[in-house]
């Protein structure tokens, strides 16, 4: 028989003004199972909590109901107090008679009746509460970082500097990501590579960082603290251990005219290559699609010239399994490619603005490569068509972004700033040139950002035209750009030598496939979703997985770096304990009743439900049942409502508890 103690709080006068608390205490005292019932001015105060603790010991109470404010306010307080008095904290429930009663009703009689019923309901519920032990999960103190751009690099360095091993996986042959491609960065105009490459080298030299480049995530199993990640190391055709990075192979390779993706296909590279001179690691990769050896079986020059004998044409893809406890996803972004529509893309409106048809219409990233000192033109702004210096240049913003009709409704956030930067870089390099910018709005929130934008107009003489471009066509060696200046209300026509499009930031191609492997959610654009937009902006809803950088949504570098450090901090918080403790509100399967229809597995958004074989002593399979991994279960209870035989039950919200409450009414 339960001995329930009920404590009715006055909350000063907040409750007692409209609820006759003495009467509630008296009424509740008569309820079956209640052996102690009292009221007190402030239950949450120290004397109030002591009253509770003493009563538990003196009255030998087995279950507690505190009728006071919302459990969202003080449930933790009272459960702690109950625990201190030697009871399991989950044998304490709160009845909300403040927010849901005294504050929303004026009639004292009605409020008193309602409060009594609310308490009665919780009395019936608490009778069915069970002792729930806190769940502990061991933590593997190694972390996986997916993506070797600035976000991944920052997160990896922070975690590694804290003394925890990091596995950094990058899809491309080198780390560096998009930031390595940039020329200068706003708003300080410092050289991107100058600030980026030291960090890349730090990664390469860090004893706690294990780097996998030219590698992809194949499979993710397990749960917070205990992931098993299978990584596919794509065949490089060059033995990383033997290669010294001397580069002779690249100078001797006969295939020299392969467009280099790193240079936005303006510059050329060889078939055996590193994407850029400062690549980390400095080990080349053979591009098998363009290599003469792989195409014809002849050549093999690189192998012949390689002193250490590192070139290995027979190399195969390798699968490596790494156990980790936390995962940081930092896969970055891709640019809206308006010239060719990627297969299956829902985005409308490709092929506008002559991109892909008119050679001198380029995107912002190509401009970065032109402006970069290490780029294909050595930092000179030259037209791709004839190598001439453009004297009139037009920048068009919001290409793709904020175009609901095309399927991208969001603002790409960085384009206003980098276009302003482009006008400056242009002005610095082509002193007699004129830059025009077509823009809808200038969005420049950020430290020193607006000043930077104003400088491009006031000091660097860029002409900003508020309005969109309606038509653009080639005329001789000029590009005619027609648009309207809505601020002045006139049509504008510019004969430009070059046009630069500020294309939208999109998630990486195949972002959704990685999300499915990780079991994390993503929005309709395939940007990864955080657990809470405000309060948990770096955590995924799936425990143990964190987000950094533009894979979550458009971000500039400072924001990306902050989030990466934040994600690293979250990982370190997780690693600060040997065992992970979590609230025991998780689903459990009653195996005797389970028939293995796996409806629970089908509705579980967390992949917490596994299949478990039950065998007799001889090892014969009796049946396959569901098993809920308590480390993964988030405690929503959708499985229980779905289970036809109610063989899975959410602790803390069992059918018995719910039915008891309904029956109490």
């Amino acid at each position: 028989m339960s001995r329930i103690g009920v404590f009715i709080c006055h909350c000063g006068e907040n409750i007692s003004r409209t609820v006759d608390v003495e009467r509630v205490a008296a009424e509740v005292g008569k309820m079956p199972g209640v052996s102690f019932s009292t009221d007190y001015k402030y239950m949450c105060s120290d004397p109030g909590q002591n009253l509770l603790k003493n009563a538990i010991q003196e009255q030998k109470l087995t279950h507690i109901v505190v009728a006071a404010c919302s459990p969202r306010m003080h449930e933790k307080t009272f459960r702690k107090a109950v625990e201190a008095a030697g009871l399991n904290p989950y044998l304490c429930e709160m009845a909300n008679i403040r927010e849901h009663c005294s504050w929303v009703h004026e009639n004292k009689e009605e409020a008193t009746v309602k409060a009594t019923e609310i308490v009665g309901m919780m009395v019936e519920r608490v009778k069915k509460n069970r002792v729930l032990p806190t769940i502990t999960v061991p933590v593997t103190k190694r972390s996986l970082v997916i993506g070797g751009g600035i976000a991944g690099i920052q997160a990896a360095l922070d975690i590694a500097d804290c003394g925890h091993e990091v596995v950094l996986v990058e899809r491309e042959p080198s780390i560096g990501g998009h930031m390595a491609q940039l020329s200068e960065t706003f708003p300080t105009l410092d050289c991107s590579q100058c600030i980026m490459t030291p960090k890349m080298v730090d990664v390469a030299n860090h004893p706690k960082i294990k780097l996998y480049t030219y590698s992809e995530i194949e499979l993710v199993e397990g749960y917070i603290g205990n992931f098993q990640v299978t990584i596919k190391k794509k065949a490089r055709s060059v033995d990383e251990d033997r290669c010294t990075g001397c580069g002779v192979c690249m100078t001797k390779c006969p295939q020299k005219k392969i467009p280099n993706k790193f240079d936005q296909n303006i510059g050329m590279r060889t078939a055996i290559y590193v994407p850029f001179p400062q690549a980390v690691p400095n080990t080349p990769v053979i591009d098998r699609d363009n290599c003469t050896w792989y195409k014809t079986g002849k050549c093999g020059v690189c192998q012949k010239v390689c002193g250490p004998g590192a070139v290995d044409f027979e190399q195969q893809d390798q699968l490596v399994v790494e156990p980790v406890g936390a995962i940081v996803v930092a896969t970055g972004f891709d640019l809206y490619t308006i010239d060719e529509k990627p297969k299956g893309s829902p985005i409308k409106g490709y092929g506008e603005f002559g991109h892909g048809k008119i050679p001198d219409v380029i995107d912002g990233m190509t401009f970065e490569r032109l402006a970069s000192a290490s780029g294909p033109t050595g930092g000179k702004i030259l037209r791709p068509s004839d190598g001439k210096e453009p004297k009139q240049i037009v920048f068009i913003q919001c290409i793709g972004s904020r175009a609901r009709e095309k399927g991208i409704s969001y603002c790409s956030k960085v384009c206003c700033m980098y276009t302003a930067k482009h006008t400056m870089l242009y002005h610095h390099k082509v002193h007699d040139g004129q830059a025009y910018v077509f823009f809808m709005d200038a969005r420049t929130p950020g430290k020193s950002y607006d000043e930077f934008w104003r400088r491009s107009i006031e000091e660097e003489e860029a002409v900003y035209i508020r309005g969109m471009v309606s038509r653009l066509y080639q005329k001789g060696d000029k590009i005619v750009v027609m648009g309207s200046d809505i601020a002045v209300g006139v049509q504008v026509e510019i004969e430009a030598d070059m046009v630069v499009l500020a294309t939208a930031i999109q998630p990486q191609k195949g972002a959704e496939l990685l999300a499915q492997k990780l079991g994390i959610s993503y929005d309709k654009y395939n940007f990864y979703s955080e657990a809470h937009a405000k309060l948990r902006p770096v955590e995924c809803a799936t425990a143990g997985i964190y987000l950094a950088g533009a894979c979550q949504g458009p971000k500039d570098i400072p924001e990306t770096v902050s989030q990466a450090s934040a994600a690293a901090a979250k990982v370190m918080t997780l690693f600060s304990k040997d065992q992970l403790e979590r609230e025991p509100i998780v689903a459990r399967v009653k195996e005797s009743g389970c028939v293995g229809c796996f409806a629970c597995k089908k509705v579980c958004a967390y992949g917490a439900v596994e299949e478990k074989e039950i065998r007799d002593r001889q090892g014969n399979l009796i049946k396959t049942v569901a098993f809920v991994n308590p480390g993964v279960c988030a405690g929503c209870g959708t499985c229980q409502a779905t289970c036809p035989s109610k063989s899975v039950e959410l602790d803390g919200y069992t059918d018995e508890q719910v039915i008891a409450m309904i029956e109490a009414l």
Partner: protein
Amino acid sequence: MWPPKKGNHSGLPLPLRPHMQKQITQQNLNILLDSLIKEGIRVVAPHMNGGTPLYEPLTCSADMNTGQLPRRSAKEAFFPVCEDIMTYEKEGQKVTVTDIDPVRFPETVLVGVRPCDAAAIPVLDAVFSWDYKDEFFLERRRKTTIIGLACTTADDACFCTAVGLSPAETKGSDLFLTPLVGGGYVCETYSDKGEQLITNHKELFSDTGGAKTLPLAQPETGKIDLKKVKAWLDEHFEDPLWDGIATRCVGCGACAFVCPACHCFDIVDEGTEKAGTRRKNWDACGFWKFTHHASGHNPRDGQPKRYRNRIMHKFKYYDDKFGQTLCSGCGRCVRVCPVGIDIKAIIDTILNSEC
């Protein structure tokens, strides 16, 4: 108390030999029933509920429809589908329990009862009164007058003749009606209750005038040697035959629930923490839960074992205890079985089996 003495334990008066023979027209029978209804007596008779024939209380004699064998047997007049036996109420630490008083059961006249249904009722008296006297059953028996009705039609599921009964069997009836050519019935009394009914409504009955009775039904099945069946069952608790005949049983309770003689029940409490009712309702040995122990062990762990119990109980155990067979050949179980299990065919198989 073990073994139970064979014979009458119920304290109910034993049936008499036909004592009084009268005749009644259909019209007068209706008048009789209507006046009983008016007197506040519950008149239960075969009635069409939608398309389903059931024994149900009448509000008017015209609602009686004896054309088809009711889907459920007449046993429920004494052994309801579900009945309250007590209620409880909790206040604070105090629990108040109130028993249902059988005195409140209504006086009932059960009319148009088929011979196979009526004959099963005295068989049930034995089990409800040998050690524990089930006042719920017995009070309803005391308060009910049974008017039997001879059968003029039968189908190929009927086998009353096989178990020693017949379409004219009067066992269990207080008053027995045999339809006459051209309407009306011959009425024979078999108990004081039956006689009382005629005496109280003398004006509606007339003396028999030698009118011809309608030809009665002739079920096509021959007689079963029940002794031989029992003898086989005595020796064959374990037999491969059980697996053969009952593998297809799906474990529902349809056969038991429509049976006039099956009488297992379950007792459940329904209600909330604060108040509720203890109820008794039909149970069936075909359910897996029937013998499922709290420990999780189930001595009848397969459908063949459960079905064996059904046959054993009907043709052996009840005979061992009370010297009677728990089957009156109504054929209801044969008609309702979802998977065509045919008790008659099973008895035939037993009789034809080698040993």
